[in-house]
């Protein structure tokens, strides 16, 4: 079966084989991290995401072997140059101009008057690749925090898709039930945030943190949902075990292929007669 960019698709898992790792076309992400220093460039923060596919720009670049983007060396260099230039802008002109820009946004529904920028940008992208690199950095370092701040005071929330990444843990039986339902988590389903669970935590650690019985934390699905779809449960924003929790306000579609097994410790080897037991 042929998958994304003509790569071989595994019929059982639906994942595409990219020579060094598998790619989930449903999620637009690799299922394992990039090899260290294979495709990361310190000048290009978009490359620091070790699961992303070609800087999240599949229309321009491809990744033939799961290691780095290939869209022409010049294109990549220009993207990096745009990122570096915008970094300079961010820590000079953008920060200086931020107060005026926020006030201009706030008053825009009421008047055409604008305070404008105090200082001009030091760097101006000169081609589309540089513009993309600059836009990526600007969105990460400037737009997102400003938008988040404005959303909190309720000014531009209607124009912003504010999403939160959450995770739901379940048992093998629960995963099968959700999958059979077409991947719908019912309203009222509890979720937590990925940061609540230490990386590589075993299922028993997860079950302890979330206060669920043995076997109920053996699988998880991580997904993004509008923040407006998250409500605080009646027993508060944290479990009695201290983990952050929300409930989904509406039935929420997830990708069943996105279920991942929680790290399960290997079984202890059996004790040999008269010998020692493995730990």
């Amino acid at each position, binding site marked *: 079966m042929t998958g994304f960019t003509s790569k071989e698709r595994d019929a059982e898992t639906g994942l595409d084989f990219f020579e060094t790792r598998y790619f989930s076309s449903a999620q637009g992400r690799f299922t394992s991290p990039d090899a260290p220093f294979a495709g990361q460039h310190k000048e290009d923060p978009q490359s620091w995401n070790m699961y992303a596919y070609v800087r999240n720009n599949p229309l321009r670049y491809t990744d033939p072997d799961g290691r780095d983007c290939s869209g022409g060396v010049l294109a990549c260099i220009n993207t990096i140059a745009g990122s570096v230039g915008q970094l300079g802008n961010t820590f000079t002109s953008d920060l200086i101009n931020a107060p005026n820009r926020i006030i201009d946004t706030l008053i825009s529904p009421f008047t055409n008057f604008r305070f404008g920028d105090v200082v001009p940008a030091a760097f101006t992208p000169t081609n589309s690749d540089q513009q993309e690199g600059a836009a990526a950095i600007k969105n990460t370092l400037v737009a997102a925090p400003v938008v988040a701040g404005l959303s909190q005071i309720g000014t531009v929330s209607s124009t912003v898709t504010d999403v939160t990444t959450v995770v739901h843990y379940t*048992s093998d*039986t629960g995963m099968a039930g959700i999958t059979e339902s077409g991947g719908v988590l019912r309203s009222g389903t*509890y979720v937590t945030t990925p940061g609540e669970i230490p990386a590589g935590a075993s299922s028993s650690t997860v079950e302890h943190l979330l206060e669920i019985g043995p076997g109920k934390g053996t699988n998880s699905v991580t997904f993004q949902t509008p923040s407006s779809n998250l409500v605080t449960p009646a027993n508060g924003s944290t479990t009695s075990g201290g983990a952050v929790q929300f409930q989904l306000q509406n039935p929420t579609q997830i990708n069943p292929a996105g279920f991942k097994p929680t790290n399960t410790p290997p079984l202890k080897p059996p004790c040999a007669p008269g010998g020692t037991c493995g730990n």
Partner: protein
Amino acid sequence: MEISQIMTEPTPYKEAFPVGSKVYIADRAFLDEFKRTWEYHHKLRPEQLTYAGRQTTVAEVGFYHGGDPVYTLSDVPGLWLEQCLRPGLA
């Protein structure tokens, strides 16, 4: 009767008592035993014990990690696990 003989494991993501159902809260002896032995999420709070035997209506159902149904009841405070509820009179 031992609590283990009374409790049945809920079906993940499938509530036994849909919203609007009449339910009884289990008797005080059961709630006391459940409070003593249940070591997972949504432990019973002391004030919930006084509602033992009360008939009420399911107001909301949620599903905790693992699929355990968690109930909100009309005019009764707190969150309730399915093990503590019994079918009520329609």
